[in-house]
């Protein structure tokens, strides 16, 4: 008999956050119940939480204690008033709380780094190692559109659509708006320029007309992964990109700097692979240790390590320990149903409010292709470091949506088999053309190969009710419920 660690608690979103990220230095009433909820969630209360949570150590060897993490997250005048929103939260997962802190603290860490003279690089679709090696700090600005979801402040998206197009993906237009507002202290833009993501560089060039943000594009010859000259071509551009960061930081980038960044990245990738092994272990499949929302919070940093691969690896290793404990004890994640329908999310993975609906309907999103594929393979640690990165990028397809179609389907099918996946949930974003156009064909290929059905949801920004609470559009809730119900019926049949 398994037990749920806690029922999961949904709380009010913060209305006080502002679009420029400034903090309303006053008590946030809605946060008061959270502390009580957490204390109830964990036997032993506050002390048990801080005792269970390991401190977080960053790349520069600074450390933040578990008590400080909690204080910043839920302190009455804390800096992150929208840390906990209407979504379900598994307050018993203490390392999950730390993951939320890691996510929410990025902007502050960027400003702190910038104040110390560290170049901040808006990096899009490229390995973070290039920036770390050059002494900079990478940030994928598009992640702020996720913050828009969490904070409930959509002004960036609206402004971005004025700058780009009313039919733009919310991520790309947020990039344009944030660069315009200088909401993040970006010194350099480095973006992949390739047919898999041609709208991203377009969004980054919106401001080339004199706003002072230098841009550099790395041309990616997609579809030519087998060609040695293509690897050399990309490696040469990677070298230029790292040197451009080094110019800003005043650092001559040595190969050893790149190797160190690669080693840090590989450590994080290994920690993440351990994470996926745990999630896909037979015992975890019976009693998933994480709810769907906690899953996405854990893996989102994988792209650029939220500015710090060392902290990211430390965080995931701690999380793995906690997950292992849950698996050994047969404890399900907060809010996860007994014997849930196992779902996997291929392609894009967003729309945070939906994840609680999945759990409510009796399903569980076990993983996300976009992130899982990113850490599926290490960068080879031999030879020339830029070439090693280029080979990883072109031949191991960390961005699986860029992989050759059959290779991608092979990879997905492997995950589906291992995870005994019962259904695929494609969460497409309005205006996104990176992957959604291909997803119908991917779903068709998986259906033909494994008989696994798929469902497609396309959404723009989450809706809110009259009181400002997040809600999932009615049709999406109905679709998910019907899909999970259909799969349950299939089990009986």
């Amino acid at each position, binding site marked *: 008999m398994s037990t749920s660690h806690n029922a999961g608690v949904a709380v009010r979103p913060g209305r006080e956050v502002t679009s420029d990220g400034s903090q309303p230095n006053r008590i946030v009433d809605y946060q008061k119940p959270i502390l009580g909820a957490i204390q109830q969630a964990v036997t032993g209360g506050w002390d048990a939480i801080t005792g269970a949570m390991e401190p977080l150590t960053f790349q520069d060897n600074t450390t933040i204690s578990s008590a400080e993490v909690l204080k910043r997250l839920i302190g009455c005048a804390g800096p992150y008033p929208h840390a906990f929103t209407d979504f379900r939260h598994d307050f018993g997962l203490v390392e999950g709380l730390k993951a939320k802190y890691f996510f929410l603290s990025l902007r502050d860490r960027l400003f702190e780094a910038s104040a110390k003279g560290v170049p901040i690089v808006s990096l899009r679709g490229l390995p973070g190692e290039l920036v770390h090696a050059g002494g900079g700090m990478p940030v994928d600005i598009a992640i702020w559109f996720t913050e828009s979801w969490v904070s409930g402040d959509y002004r960036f998206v609206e402004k971005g659509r004025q700058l780009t*197009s009313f039919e*733009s993906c919310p991520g790309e237009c947020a990039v344009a708006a944030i660069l315009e507002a200088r909401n993040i202290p970006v010194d350099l833009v480095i973006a992949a*320029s390739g047919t898999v993501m*041609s709208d991203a560089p377009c969004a980054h060039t919106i401001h080339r*007309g004199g706003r002072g943000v230098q841009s550099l594009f790395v*041309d990616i010859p997609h579809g030519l992964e087998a060609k040695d*000259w293509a690897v050399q071509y990309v490696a*040469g551009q990677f070298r230029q990109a790292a040197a451009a960061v080094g110019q800003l930081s005043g650092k001559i980038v040595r190969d050893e700097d790149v190797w160190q960044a690669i080693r840090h990245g590989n450590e994080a990738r290994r920690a993440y692979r351990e994470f996926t092994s745990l999630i896909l272990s037979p015992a975890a499949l019976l009693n998933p240790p994480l709810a769907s929302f906690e899953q996405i919070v854990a893996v989102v940093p994988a792209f650029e390590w939220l500015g710090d691969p060392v902290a990211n690896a430390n965080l995931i290793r701690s999380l793995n320990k906690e997950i292992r404990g849950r698996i050994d004890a047969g404890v399900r994640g907060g809010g996860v149903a007994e014997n849930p329908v196992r779902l996997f999310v291929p392609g894009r993975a967003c729309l945070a409010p939906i994840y609680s609906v999945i759990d409510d309907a009796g399903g569980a999103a076990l993983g996300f292709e976009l992130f899982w594929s990113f850490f599926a393979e290490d960068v080879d640690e031999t030879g020339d470091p830029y070439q090693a990165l280029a080979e990883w990028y072109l031949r191991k397809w960390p961005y699986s949506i860029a992989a050759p179609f059959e290779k991608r389907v092979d990879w997905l099918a492997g995950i589906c088999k291992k995870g005994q996946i019962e259904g695929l949930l494609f969460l*497409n974003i309005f205006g996104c053309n990176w992957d959604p*156009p291909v997803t119908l064909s991917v779903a068709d290929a998986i259906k033909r190969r494994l008989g696994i059905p798929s469902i497609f949801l396309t959404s723009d920004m989450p809706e809110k009710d009259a009181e400002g609470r997040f809600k999932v559009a009615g049709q999406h809730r109905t679709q998910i419920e019907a899909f999970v119900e259909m799969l349950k019926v299939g089990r009986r049949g």
Partner: protein
Amino acid sequence: MATSNEAASRRQVFPAAGTRRSARASIRAVDDAYAFRYDEIASLRREGRKVVGYVCNYFPVELVHALGAIPIRLAFCSADAMERGKKYVGDSMCPFTRALVGEVTQEGSFTNQHVDFLSGAVMCQQAYNALRVLSYQTKKPLRFLWLPLNPSNDEVRGAFPHELEDFAAELSGFLGRTWTPEALKESVDLYNGIRERIARLYALQSEHSQPISWNEFNRVIHAGPFLDPAHYRTLLDGVIGELEAPASTGPSPASVNSAPATAPRVVLSGSIVAPRDTTLISLLEEAGARIVGDDSCHGSRTFSLPIKSPTLQGIADAYLGSPPCGSAQNPDLENDRRLRHLQDLTQTTRADGVVYYCLRFCDSYAFKASETKTFLEKRGGVPVLAVHSEYGESDLGQVRTRVEAFVEIIR
């Protein structure tokens, strides 16, 4: 005997079907050649010739032709095909790529039946994804030709010839034929000849006192990537000859459906204007404007690349040097060749305004609409109207109102 789907397909891609026959014999000859080309291609395939269906204007047709295959450009704009395409790619793709997918996946359509190999020197993610979906759904082999998206990067000059070489070798393997330097020179000369004639036609259309309507002009231009190139070159001679003939030789055929020479002069820019995509052009001409040039990838940009040397390096240099697509990035606004090309075009054609066509969800051009407008208005004083639209008539009234107001302003 054509199947019903094939017949429907021919109507979609045949520009003259359903439209008024041209008053000019030379243009009627182009239309007739287009209509006959379907049977000609089917016949050639029965004889063993392969057909390479491609997208985008940076595809080196010379190579395919030199290998003895038939290159045909895949470009469709029927609202029906666009709706059918949604079944495979959803509804956030641009109308052009949706129509492309809808057309080629239609069982029994001409392209579905007769294209052996899919390819394209694609620039944007939508065309890239459309080809991937087409290859999966139709089981036709696909080989992208990579073209650098960042032409300002010096390294591309070294990398692109490698890609052309690999591409030519792989295509040779598929076709079972090899190209020779002589065959390549013959192909390059042939297509260069076509480009010279097209350039002459554009100049005539801009300067002629009695220009033909732009939709009729486009019928001639759009026919090229479907017709046999040698035949097309001859047909272009006929069109040029007729347009250059003194107007006094008879009643002016141009007066049938063209704008007067004194009308406000407009350059058409932005997203692709595919064959039979006539709505915006008709609205402009009905509002009293005269189109004097375009930078469309199915228009003048297809022909803005004279190849100086009949070698792979020569081909690479020409395609890299041609005016770039909106998907290509240049971090330096001042040296953006797309904008420079458009600015030059407005000056050489003495344009009074630019109509910037944004197909829905065409991020590559929509994202740059505002910047293009600012660039041209500040530097050339040329007003710009950005029009967002898609295939079909759902927004006809709105677009008409905006076009009429714009033409009134620049008159």
